[in-house]
């Protein structure tokens, strides 16, 4: 009997072992990944300095994501052309980095340059990705941003977002006579240019889905009016002709419509109109101020703020105005909602003593406050949905500056601007 019992146990153990595959559990080390970004070698005919400048931009971009600690290009050795594709993995491994960004700059016969970009896993000793970008020599920064995007996407699994632009309201002059202009720059603050002359009231510039046009609120005859601007040509036109007071515009996801607020006879409601003109359609009619509309990425819903219930709160409705319902119930007031690119979350400004940026589930609930400044407002999503851009006004200063905060939490990062900035909007990814 004992023998039989032992045999049975042995058989059971055998079959269990057969199915018991050993498991290795990876860590969750939450520190920025060390990544080497040496100066890229330049082929004859290309500037040696250019390889270092490109590496500088790549390193800066990667640092701005918060996911990496770039090493170089200063203070680390360079490498030869062949080593871009076949680096000495042991050497880099010993330097304490886990990844290496390599590449080169090579002139082309047509006057443009090729910027090659390789990402190596130095621990595993293998190449993870490679891309090449052909640009005009003056556009080398875009090639660097593209290279950084390729590395960010490969190492994080997220969509790229670094080769983008930011539009915002540049503010100069004293508080009593503040002059405002629509400013456009790369996401790292470079290539700044102004799209409008200095005015006293310019707010809420927003990109079209393709990034080729803007809508913003300016003034005409001392009344707020919505304008549409073609970025390349600088031409602009009124969205709604006549004397209507219009503001808070935003494009639909397909770029064919623009949703905005229209103040009329003491009531402010939300309307939608074709981006190229046409007759506006009214979507809300409740007493009070309905404003700051934002489409869901599928274009089927619109989130907006309204004080119809007595205080500013967030509401969602169908894109035809149907099924309006409140989604914010957390105490305090809620303003300037923006639907995330993935459609699962809504960013907002919460007013409860101070102004803070937060996110909540698209259906309401799951609220998280991301910033802790005295006055943080005007959120705008990065195109990959991983960061929220906003402007912060320090207590007593009256001067606003731009910040970006990761939605997973962490400290907001200052976005460099040469002067004060407010109402930022992140562009879609450049083509």
């Amino acid at each position, binding site marked *: 009997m004992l023998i039989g019992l032992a045999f049975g146990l042995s058989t059971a153990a055998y079959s269990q072992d057969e199915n018991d595959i*050993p498991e290795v*559990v*990876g860590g*969750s080390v939450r520190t920025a990944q060390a990544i080497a970004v040496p100066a890229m070698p330049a082929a004859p005919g290309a500037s040696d300095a250019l390889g270092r400048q490109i590496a500088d931009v790549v390193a800066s971009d990667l640092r701005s994501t918060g996911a990496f600690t770039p090493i170089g290009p200063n203070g680390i050795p360079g490498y030869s052309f062949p080593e871009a594709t076949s680096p000495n993995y042991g050497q880099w491994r010993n330097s304490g980095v*886990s990844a290496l960004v390599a590449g080169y700059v090579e002139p082309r016969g047509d006057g443009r340059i090729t910027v090659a970009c390789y990402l190596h896993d130095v*621990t595993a000793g293998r190449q993870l990705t490679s891309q090449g970008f052909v640009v005009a020599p003056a556009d080398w920064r875009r090639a660097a941003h593209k290279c950084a995007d390729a590395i960010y996407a490969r190492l*994080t*699994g*997220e969509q790229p977002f670094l080769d983008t632009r930011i539009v915002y309201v540049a503010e100069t002059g004293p508080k009593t006579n503040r002059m405002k202009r629509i400013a456009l720059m790369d996401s790292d603050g470079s290539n700044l240019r102004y799209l409008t002359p200095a005015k006293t009231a310019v707010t809420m510039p927003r990109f079209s889905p393709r990034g080729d046009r803007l809508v913003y609120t300016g003034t005409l005859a001392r009344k707020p009016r919505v304008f549409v601007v073609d970025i390349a040509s600088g031409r602009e036109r009124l969205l709604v002709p006549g004397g209507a007071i219009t503001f808070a515009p935003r494009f639909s996801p397909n770029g064919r419509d623009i949703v905005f607020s229209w103040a009329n006879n003491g009531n402010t409601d939300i309307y939608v109109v074709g981006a190229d003109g046409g007759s506006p359609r009214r979507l809300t009619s409740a007493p009070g101020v309905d404003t700051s509309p934002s489409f869901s990425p599928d274009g089927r819903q619109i989130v907006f703020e309204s004080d119809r219930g007595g205080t500013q709160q967030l509401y969602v409705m169908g894109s035809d105005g149907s099924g309006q319902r409140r989604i914010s119930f957390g105490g305090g007031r809620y303003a300037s909602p923006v639907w995330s690119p993935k459609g699962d979350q809504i960013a907002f400004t919460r007013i409860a003593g101070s102004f803070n940026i937060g996110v909540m589930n698209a259906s309401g609930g799951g609220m998280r406050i991301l910033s802790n400044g005295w006055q943080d407002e005007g959120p705008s999503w990065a195109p990959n949905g991983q960061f929220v851009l906003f402007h912060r006004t320090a207590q007593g200063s009256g001067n606003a500056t731009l910040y970006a905060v990761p939605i*997973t939490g962490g400290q907001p990062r200052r976005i460099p601007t040469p002067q004060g900035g407010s109402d930022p909007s992140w562009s879609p990814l450049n083509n």
Partner: protein
Amino acid sequence: MTSARAEWTGVGAALIFHVALIAALSLSLAKLDRDPEPPSMQVDLVDEVDFESAAPQAVAEQGSPPPQEVEPLPEPDQSLPTTPPPPTPHEVPQPTITKTPPLPRQPPRPVAKPQPRVAAKAPQRPAVKPDKAARRAGLGDDFLSTLDDDLSPRAGASKPAAPTFNATARASIGSAIATQAQRCANREPFIGEGADQVRLTINLQFARSGRLSRPPRVTAMSGDAGLRAKYGELLEDQVSRIFTDCAPFRLPPDLYDTDNGGWRDTTINYRVKK
């Protein structure tokens, strides 16, 4: 009166006999060869467990039982090659699989835990001669006790039976690989929200050196489709790093590739912490 005399006579006789006994014992002890004290044993403290024994090599010691009391172990098979097999690309020849006389076999590895060797189980053995069983081990007693009895060296046997990669051995090897890989896995970074819900089943092909002979191959992936698409490649990257960084894996050479399997072809599961 008569009884008192007899009592004194008895006491005197007892004294004489005691003196004689003490004298005799003193003389006999003075002539005994006293064995010297055995030298103190040096113990190396290490922080990792390994199949490779780091125990000091057993040597003949004075005071040990006479050699004839220990059954002699078979001599190494001199007909086998004494040079390592030609290395395959990216492999490091493993000296432990050669048939060179292994005394001293190799210096104790600083990372290995001292374990009594199978062949050197009895420290009083005059000398340990290598045989296949001893070489197989690089293994500790605990590991061998989990294997079939047939794997243990038999008294009087000239050669041990061929190693069997049975379920128990497979489990032990799997556990050893997971344990050795975990040190590198712990260094892997957080990937992203939801990555912990994806699990990979990975096929690993090892060379005898304990290094991968080809990149890890994903044979199955479970989890939400979106999360798999987003994180699958990153998880695969982590597995590749872990099994490169922690190589060579120290595993029993004779279980590398047996008639019924071996650690040459290994399957593991991989996931990340939440």
